[in-house]
């Protein structure tokens, strides 16, 4: 009887943890939006480590890549993938450069609509511009214990054909972007988790060359 009670207790404990960790609708979004916007406006540069987790329904586990990320106002971005394969993507002044071993490819982002849209999403989420963009996105607001979660549904047909919605997880503590989740119409998704975030430290311009 004692053992049975112990199992029931542990079960209830796990259930309460699960409920606690779950996302809930945010009742007062405007208050948080104002707070996040005022914090993100102060971000002039950002440096972080990232882990990209790609979840495909037919695979047993996520496909994981890791690397480093740099951002400099207004729109300079460097993604350096370090594991399991080393390559770098740089977005600078409308130009996308991919460095991959001895290969280097440059393309104008305006001619690559998909990259242009993804770049706008990423810079917009770091700078906070997306929060006030009602023309291109419908938004839903959630929270869990540590995060404000904003879900962006694209209104553009082309973008919504490959991106069902995107979630940005802002830290409640300091409004840092902790995670971006890109959910595809098929149900597959990509998580981009940021750690070791450093804001407003000096970044040399040649990082984006």
């Amino acid at each position, binding site marked *: 009887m004692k053992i049975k009670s112990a199992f029931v207790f542990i079960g209830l404990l796990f259930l309460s943890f699960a409920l606690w960790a779950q996302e809930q609708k945010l009742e007062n979004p405007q208050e948080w939006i104002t707070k996040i916007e005022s914090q993100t406006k102060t971000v002039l540069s950002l440096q972080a480590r990232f882990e990209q987790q790609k979840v495909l329904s037919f695979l047993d586990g996520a496909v994981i890549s890791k690397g480093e990320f740099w951002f400099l106002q207004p729109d300079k971005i460097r993604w350096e993938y370090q594991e399991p394969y080393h390559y770098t993507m740089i977005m600078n002044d409308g130009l996308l450069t991919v460095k*991959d071993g001895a290969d280097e490819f440059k393309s104008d982002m305006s001619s690559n609509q998909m990259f242009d849209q993804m770049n706008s999403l990423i810079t917009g989420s770091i700078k906070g511009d997306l929060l006030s963009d009602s023309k291109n996105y419908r938004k839903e607001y959630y929270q869990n214990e540590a995060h404000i979660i904003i879900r962006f549904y694209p209104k553009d047909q*082309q973008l919504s054909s*490959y991106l069902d919605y995107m979630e940005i997880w802002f830290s409640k503590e300091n409004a840092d972007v902790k995670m971006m989740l890109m959910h595809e119409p098929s149900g597959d998704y990509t998580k981009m988790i940021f750690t070791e975030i450093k804001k407003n430290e000096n970044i040399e311009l040649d990082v984006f060359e």
Partner: protein
Amino acid sequence: MSLSRKSIKIYLLFVLFLGLYSCAPKVLNGLEKQTLNQSVSLASMIDYQENGQANYRCKIDAFEQHISGMMIFKKTEQNRRVVMMTDFGLKVIDISYDNEGGYVINYIMKHFDYKFIRESFALNIAMLLQTRIPQGNNSYQRAEDWVYYAPPVLFFQKDQQTLRVERYRGKNKCLAIAEMQKNAVIRIQQNKPEISIKLIPVN
């Protein structure tokens, strides 16, 4: 009764058609042919892990565009699944291949959804996946290589390893070549339209 000019034209076209599709590629001329009395298994060009998955870094150049990302191969007893994703992780194309060489495109990103892109992509990747030459096809020996012809594809094997695959249209028109290079890198080169695919294993 003499044949009409139209009938002669149709006959000539028929003969030309047979000439194009019934003959083996010229590269096999002079080699001794053996008809397979049972199916033959080929080594896969794809280097699968124990769980049946293989991850490759993929670089594609086509129509003056460059696209890169990850290509994932997953094999089960029933089928092969191949997915290519962009560097940001968004799916570009998702194809299932059955063991008989048929394929179904489960998804293709709207930007790339054109018939010739779908077909080129599916057929070029299929060159890497076929591991069985059915009974009734022909094999040829060329020095140390074994060459198998399962129309319209030629497979070149050496030391139990498939090193080169060629896809033909007609007798001599080689449309695409898949070749194993150093460090298990695979390169696929298609002509007209020109498409170059490079796959680098990242397992």
